[in-house]
């Protein structure tokens, strides 16, 4: 970005709360059902129906509020947001306006080794709309109302971010948090976690904000960064060419990597909010807050710090290992089952295991190597039964089969040769058979040593400890 300009970014994130039934009706929320089979009379907005609030949606919202250290409104009020669109049959969305359930809170993000606090203005409960399908139905639009009434928690940040990188860091942190809290499954492909970004630019040093544009529909971490960067560049171009940024809603097109103006109706933002007379104020008692507070899991930041203190991990490994609750739990199970091999377990998990999962497109929950089986392997590395090199072979077999590490080591005869006499015999044999590299090494060509080590490892089928071999070889060649 041109250094005379500063970007100002705020995010609105819609998280779908993982309840079984809808926020105001007893219809199911499961994803992927046949169209309209999970849309009941309430969701369809038929005359005479009344909304009844889901207790679990309220609890999940309070859980989130407590986790970000926010004020929880003792009295919270639902409001009608009025607009006309066919996937919103009532003609209004039940949302919250003046008294949202979650007030001021914050989330800390790490960018380039620095910690920055991002303010969260509010988080409010609302119902999702249905889906419009614009494919060809003889020139008509198809409406699926299964999603109508699904509970959402809309989390609105302060305009505290100054780069696309910070915005992505915030979004990732929030994604991690809602999954830790088990209030949202975080599935972005299925739309459980969606992001709108408010972006403006201003000359560096200016206090007032520039005119902002809202970018809708950015549903992956990669696209958020690209879409925001693109929008910042666009606004700078507009201003530098002597024009003004228009306040509008823009849609990100991932295929073309650009944002474009949505044909916005003039009155699109005139929602005429008013308190919904069908719903009474929600009372959040101190006792409920205390009860939920007592059941909050260890949060990502606290867990990361504990991993650093307890397992002596570096910041980067601890960050990776605590990026999801499942991964952190997996790690701790491996450490425990391996008899406390915290460092080895961290290296293996952040290296080979995550690498293999990534390649296979799997999450830790679907890892073919269980924590116990991985611990079995780590124990054998720790007690020198196998070399690090052999361990990689064993890991491949753990990944592709069901044998334990011990069974694989036994069947394949991979036990490291610890008998010094046996290794010495091989070293002597290799020295005798390779006079040329031996002479080269003695005359100062250190590289020749590698050829000899290679020969010895080959002779031992990789079962000797390369460090030991190296030491023994140098000792012998110096004589």
């Amino acid at each position, binding site marked *: 970005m041109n250094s005379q300009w500063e970007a100002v970014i705020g995010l609105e994130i819609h998280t779908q709360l993982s309840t079984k039934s809808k926020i105001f009706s007893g219809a199911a929320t499961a994803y992927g059902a046949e*169209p309209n089979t*999970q849309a*009941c009379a309430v969701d369809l907005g038929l005359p005479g129906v009344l909304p*009844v*609030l889901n207790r679990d949606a309220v609890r999940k919202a309070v859980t989130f509020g407590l986790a970000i250290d926010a004020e929880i409104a003792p009295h919270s009020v639902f409001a009608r947001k*009025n607009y006309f669109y066919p996937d919103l049959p009532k003609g209004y969305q039940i949302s919250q306006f003046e008294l949202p359930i979650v007030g001021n809170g914050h989330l800390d993000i790490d960018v380039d080794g620095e910690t920055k606090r991002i303010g969260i203005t509010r988080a409010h409960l609302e119902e999702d709309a249905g889906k419009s399908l614009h494919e060809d139905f003889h020139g008509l639009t*198809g*409406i699926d109302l299964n999603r109508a009434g699904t509970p959402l928690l809309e989390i609105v940040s302060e305009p505290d971010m100054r780069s696309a990188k910070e915005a992505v860091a915030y979004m990732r942190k929030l994604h991690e948090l809602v999954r830790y809290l088990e209030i949202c499954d975080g599935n972005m492909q299925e739309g459980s976690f969606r992001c709108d970004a408010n972006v403006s630019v201003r000359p560096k040093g200016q206090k007032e904000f520039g005119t902002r544009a809202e970018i809708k529909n950015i549903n992956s971490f990669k696209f958020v960064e690209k879409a925001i960067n693109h929008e910042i560049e666009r606004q700078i171009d507009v201003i530098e060419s002597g024009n003004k940024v228009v306040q509008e809603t823009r849609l990100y097109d991932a295929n073309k990597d650009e944002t474009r103006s949505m044909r916005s109706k003039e009155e699109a933002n005139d929602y005429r909010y008013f308190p919904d007379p069908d719903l009474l104020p929600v009372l959040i008692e101190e006792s409920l807050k205390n009860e939920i507070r007592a059941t909050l899991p260890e949060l990502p930041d606290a867990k990361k710090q504990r991993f650093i203190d307890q397992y002596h991990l570096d910041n980067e490994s601890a960050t990776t290992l605590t990026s999801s609750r499942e991964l952190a739990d997996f790690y701790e199970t491996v450490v425990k089952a391996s008899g406390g091999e915290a460092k080895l377990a961290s290296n293996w998990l952040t290296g080979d295991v995550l690498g293999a999962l990534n390649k296979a497109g799997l999450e830790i929950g679907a890892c073919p190597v269980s924590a116990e089986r991985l611990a079995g392997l780590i124990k054998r590395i720790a007690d020198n039964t196998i070399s690090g090199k052999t361990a990689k072979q064993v890991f491949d077999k753990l990944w592709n089969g069901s044998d334990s590490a011990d069974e694989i080591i036994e069947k394949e005869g991979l036990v490291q040769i610890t008998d010094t006499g046996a290794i010495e015999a091989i070293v002597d044999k290799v020295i005798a058979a390779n006079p040329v590299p031996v002479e080269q090494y003695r005359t100062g060509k250190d590289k020749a040593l590698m050829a000899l080590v290679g020969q010895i490892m080959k002779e031992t089928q990789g079962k000797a400890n390369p460090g030991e071999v190296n030491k023994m070889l140098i000792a012998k060649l110096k004589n």
Partner: protein
Amino acid sequence: MSLTANDVKKIAHLARLGIAEQDVEHYAKDLSGVLELMTRMDQLNTDGVTPMAHPLDQIQRLREDAVTEIDQRDHFQTIAPQTEAGLYLVPKVID
């Protein structure tokens, strides 16, 4: 506060209400009267009065998170003007 004819037309459009041109002035006068009443009420001293979100002095009851509805799609769709592949069909909307 008093409403102009244009305000009335805008409000009618937002609410998707069709009103006849000759009635616009009449509505503007009536609605302005309602707003005038609000302005007068606004002058009352409400210090120490908690704002009211609902006329009933009660709190919202909550229901357990359980699926209690069965699929009645076929039944509901008997009153829809047009359906296909389980979808309700409506005149084309482009955003």
